[in-house]
C-alpha cells in the first residue's frame, strides 16, 4: 500500500470523481457509490468498503474530494467511533449489517457508556444484560448520551457477570434504540442547552448475535472506542464552529445541509466551553478594556496559557510524526484545557464588566460571552474530570505509587451508589 504515491492517489480519485460525481443525486445514493468504490473510506479494508490505504493517504483522498467540490462519506457524530470499533471487534455478520449505512449516513449512532451511578468509574456500571433464549434483555439507565434523540443504534456497555472483578464482567453490544424498551429523555444543562439525553432501558431486547467482541470482554472493546474519542472530540469542536457553511446548489447539498444541522446541533456551544481564548485579545481591544492595567494582565495570562498549551500539543504531534516515544507533553492537554478555559472566562468577565450579567441578544457578542461563562464549568468534568486526569498523570506519567484500591473484588461485593 505504501508504494502508492500521494500523486497517483490524487489522480485516481479525481478521475473517478469526474466520471461519477453528480450533485443531483440523493445523498444516500451518492454515498452508496462512494462506498462501492472504496473512496468513501479509503483507509478501511478492501473487503469492507475501503481500499486499505494509510491514514495519511486517506486524508489526501478527503482533501481531493473537498477540493473537487463533491460530498464525502458521512463522518459526523458517534458513527465514526462505531465504525472504528466494529471494524476491529465485530463479527462479519454485524459489519455486513451496519457498516454500509454508517458510510451513507442512513444510520445515526450514540454511545451508551456513562451512567448516573458511574462516571469517573466507568467500569462500575450497573446496566444489566441477561441472556434469555436468543436475546439479551437489558435493564438500566445511561446518561450524557449525545444524539440519542435522533440515533437508531447505540454502542452499549452492560454488565454480564457480577461475580468477577468489575472490568471482567462487562460486555459490549449494539442496541437498537427504536424499540419500546428504550426511552430517551433530553437532559438540560446549566447553560440552557439540551445536547444530551438520558436513556432508560426497561427489558430492552438485543439479539444474541449483536454482541461485539467476546462475552465479558467488553472493556477491551470499549477501550478501542474511547481511544478514537479524543480524535473525534477535536472534530466535533470544529463542527460547532463551521456547521452549515456549505452553499447549497444541487439536491445533494440541501440534504447535506439538513443532515449537518441535525448532527451539529448538540455541539453548538462546544467552542464556548473551551473558554473562547481566541476572542480574549480582540474583545479587550474592541471594548477598550485593554487599556485597564488589571484587565490587560488577565488577558495576557489567558493568552499565555492558551498559546503554551497549543505549542505543547504541537510538540506532542511532532514527536509522534517523527516516531519518537511519547513524552509527558502528550498527556497534559486535557488538564491544561481546563486552565485555559478558566483563564479565558476570567479575562472575558473582566472585559465584559457589568454586561457579564446579560445573556441572549442583550449579552455581548449576541450572548456568546454569557455562553462561555456558563459552559466553562463543563471542561473540567466532561471526558474525565480534572481530578481523574491528575490521578492518571501522577500515576502513569510521573510513576507515583498507585492509590490503594477497594474495588478489585467480585463486583457484586463492591460498594456502589444506590440508583433509583
Amino acid at each position, binding site marked *: 500500500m505504501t508504494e502508492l504515491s500521494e500523486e497517483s492517489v490524487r489522480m485516481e480519485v479525481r478521475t473517478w470523481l469526474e466520471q461519477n460525481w453528480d450533485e443531483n443525486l440523493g445523498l444516500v445514493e451518492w454515498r452508496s457509490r462512494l462506498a462501492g468504490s472504496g473512496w468513501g473510506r479509503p483507509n478501511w479494508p478492501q473487503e469492507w468498503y475501503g481500499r486499505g490505504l494509510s491514514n495519511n493517504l486517506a486524508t489526501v483522498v478527503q482533501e481531493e474530494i473537498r477540493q473537487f467540490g463533491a460530498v464525502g462519506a458521512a463522518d459526523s457524530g458517534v458513527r465514526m467511533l462505531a465504525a472504528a470499533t466494529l471494524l476491529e471487534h465485530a463479527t462479519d455478520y454485524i459489519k455486513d449489517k451496519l457498516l454500509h449505512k454508517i458510510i451513507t449516513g442512513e444510520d445515526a449512532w450514540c454511545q451508551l457508556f456513562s451512567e448516573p451511578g458511574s462516571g469517573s468509574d466507568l467500569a462500575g456500571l450497573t446496566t444489566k444484560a441477561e441472556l434469555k433464549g436468543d436475546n439479551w434483555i437489558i435493564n438500566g439507565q445511561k446518561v450524557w448520551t449525545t444524539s440519542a434523540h435522533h440515533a437508531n443504534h447505540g454502542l452499549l456497555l452492560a454488565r454480564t457477570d457480577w461475580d468477577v472483578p468489575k472490568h471482567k464482567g462487562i460486555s459490549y453490544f449494539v442496541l437498537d434504540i427504536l424499540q419500546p424498551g428504550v426511552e430517551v429523555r433530553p437532559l438540560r444543562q446549566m447553560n440552557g442547552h439540551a445536547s444530551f439525553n438520558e436513556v432508560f432501558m426497561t427489558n430492552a431486547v438485543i439479539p444474541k448475535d449483536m454482541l461485539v467482541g467476546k462475552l465479558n470482554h467488553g472493556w477491551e472493546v470499549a477501550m478501542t472506542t474511547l481511544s478514537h474519542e479524543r480524535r473525534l472530540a477535536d472534530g466535533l469542536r470544529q463542527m460547532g464552529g463551521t456547521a452549515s457553511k456549505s452553499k447549497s446548489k444541487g439536491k445533494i447539498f440541501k440534504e447535506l445541509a439538513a443532515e449537518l444541522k441535525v448532527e451539529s446541533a448538540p455541539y453548538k456551544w462546544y467552542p464556548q466551553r473551551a473558554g473562547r481564548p481566541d476572542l480574549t485579545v480582540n474583545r479587550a481591544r474592541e471594548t477598550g478594556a485593554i487599556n485597564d492595567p488589571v484587565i490587560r494582565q488577565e488577558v495576557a495570562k489567558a493568552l499565555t496559557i492558551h498559546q503554551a498549551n497549543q505549542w505543547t500539543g504541537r510538540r506532542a504531534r511532532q514527536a509522534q510524526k517523527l516516531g519518537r516515544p511519547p513524552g509527558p507533553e502528550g498527556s497534559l492537554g486535557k488538564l491544561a484545557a481546563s486552565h485555559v478555559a478558566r483563564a479565558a472566562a476570567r479575562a472575558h468577565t473582566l472585559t465584559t464588566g457589568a454586561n457579564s450579567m446579560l445573556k441572549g441578544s442583550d449579552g455581548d457578542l449576541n450572548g456568546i460571552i454569557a455562553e462561555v461563562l456558563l459552559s466553562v464549568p463543563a471542561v473540567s468534568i466532561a471526558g474525565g474530570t480534572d481530578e481523574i486526569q491528575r490521578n492518571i498523570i501522577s500515576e502513569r506519567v510521573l510513576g507515583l505509587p498507585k492509590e490503594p484500591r477497594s474495588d478489585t473484588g467480585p463486583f457484586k461485593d*463492591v460498594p456502589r451508589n444506590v440508583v433509583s
Partner: protein
Amino acid sequence: MLNGAVYSVVNSIQGTDMRYSFTDEQEQFRDFVRKFMSSHSATNAVRVQMETEQGYDRDVWKNLSESLGLPGLLIPEEYGGQGFGAIELGIALEEMGRSLLCAPYLGSSVLATTAILNTGTDKEKNQLLPDLAAGKKIAALALAEPSGQWDAASIETVAQESNGNYRINGTKSFVLDGSSADYIVVVARQENSVGEAGISFFIVDSSAAGLDKRLLDTVDETRKLSELKFTDVAAKPLGTVGDGAEALQQTLNLSYVALANEMMGGAQKLLENALEYAQLRVQFGRLIGSFQSMKHKLADLLMDVELAKSAVYYAAEAAAEGADDLPAVASLAKAFASDTYLKVAAACIQIHGGIGFTWENDTHLYFKRAKSSEVFLGGPDLHRERLIQNWQKS
C-alpha cells in the same frame, strides 16, 4: 410582627465586640428568617419565580413584610420601620442568599430605601418610607447606565430644571427590580455638571410618560434587571438638588456590605451541599469524600468561606457603627465575598461531577447568582482598588 423581645434588642451589648459575635437575640432573629426562607424559598419555589417576568411571589413578599417586617429593617421606627441596623440587615441577607430568595429586597429594601434615608427630607421620608417599610410599595434605584459603572462620576443622565420643575433624559441600565417597582429613585446630574458635582436624586413614577422600561435577559434569572429610558420624564427632587454625591456613596457603602453578606450566605450553603454530596456519592467503591483531592478542596473552601464570613460580619458592624473604615472594609468585603462565592460555586459543580452541570441540580442557580453578584455594584478588581485608596490604618 415578631414578638417584642426579639425586636427590643439593639445593636450592641456592653463589653462585647460585635464585630466578632452576634447577640443571642440576633441569633434568634437569624433562626426566624431561616425558617421563613426554608418554608417559602425552597429551590423549587425559586425555579418557579425565576421563570416569571415579575420575578417574585407577591404572597411571599406580603408574608415576609407582615410577619417578619423585613422590608422595614433599616427604617427608623418613626417612619414605620423596625429601626435596626446593618448587622440585622446582614443577617437577613445572608439567609436570603442561602435560599436564593426571589424578592425585591436588595433592590427596594436596601438600595432604594437607603438612598431615601440618606437623601430625603423629613417630609419626604414621612411620605415614602412607611409604605416601603410595610412592603406595600416597591422602589428601585436607577444609578448605573449602559456603561455599567455604579458611581457618581459616570452618570450622564441629566435632570433639567425649568421653573422649579424637573425633566429627566438619559438611559439607566442594570436597574434591579426596575420593571416591577412602583416608583424609581433616579440618580441624575444637573446640566453641565461633571464628576461628583451636580448629583441629585429624583422620584419618578413607574407609569410616568416618557419612561420606557425593558426587562433585560439576565444570566441570573433570579434577579430581574431592567433598562430604563427617560425621555423628558417629569421627576420630583428627593432632598436637596445638586449635592447628592456623598449620600450616593454612603448608600453604596451599605449596599456593598448587604450584597457581600448575601453572597457569603450563598457560598456557605453551597459548601454544605458539596460536603453532603461528597458523603453520599460513591465511585471506585468508596465515597468520593474519601479521596484526598476532594478533602483538600473542601478544606480550602471551608477556609475561604470562614474568612469571607469574618470579613462580611466585620463590614456589617462597621456599617452599623458608621465607622471611619467603612469605605475600605465595605469594598474589602464585597471583593472577597464575590471571589469566594464564585470559587465555591465552581468547586461545588466540580465536586458534583456531571450532575453539577445539569439544569436539574441546584448548583447552577447559585453559580449564576455568584456570577451576577460578582459584577453588580462593581467587580472585585474595582473594589480592591477602592480598598487600597480608602485604607487609612498604618
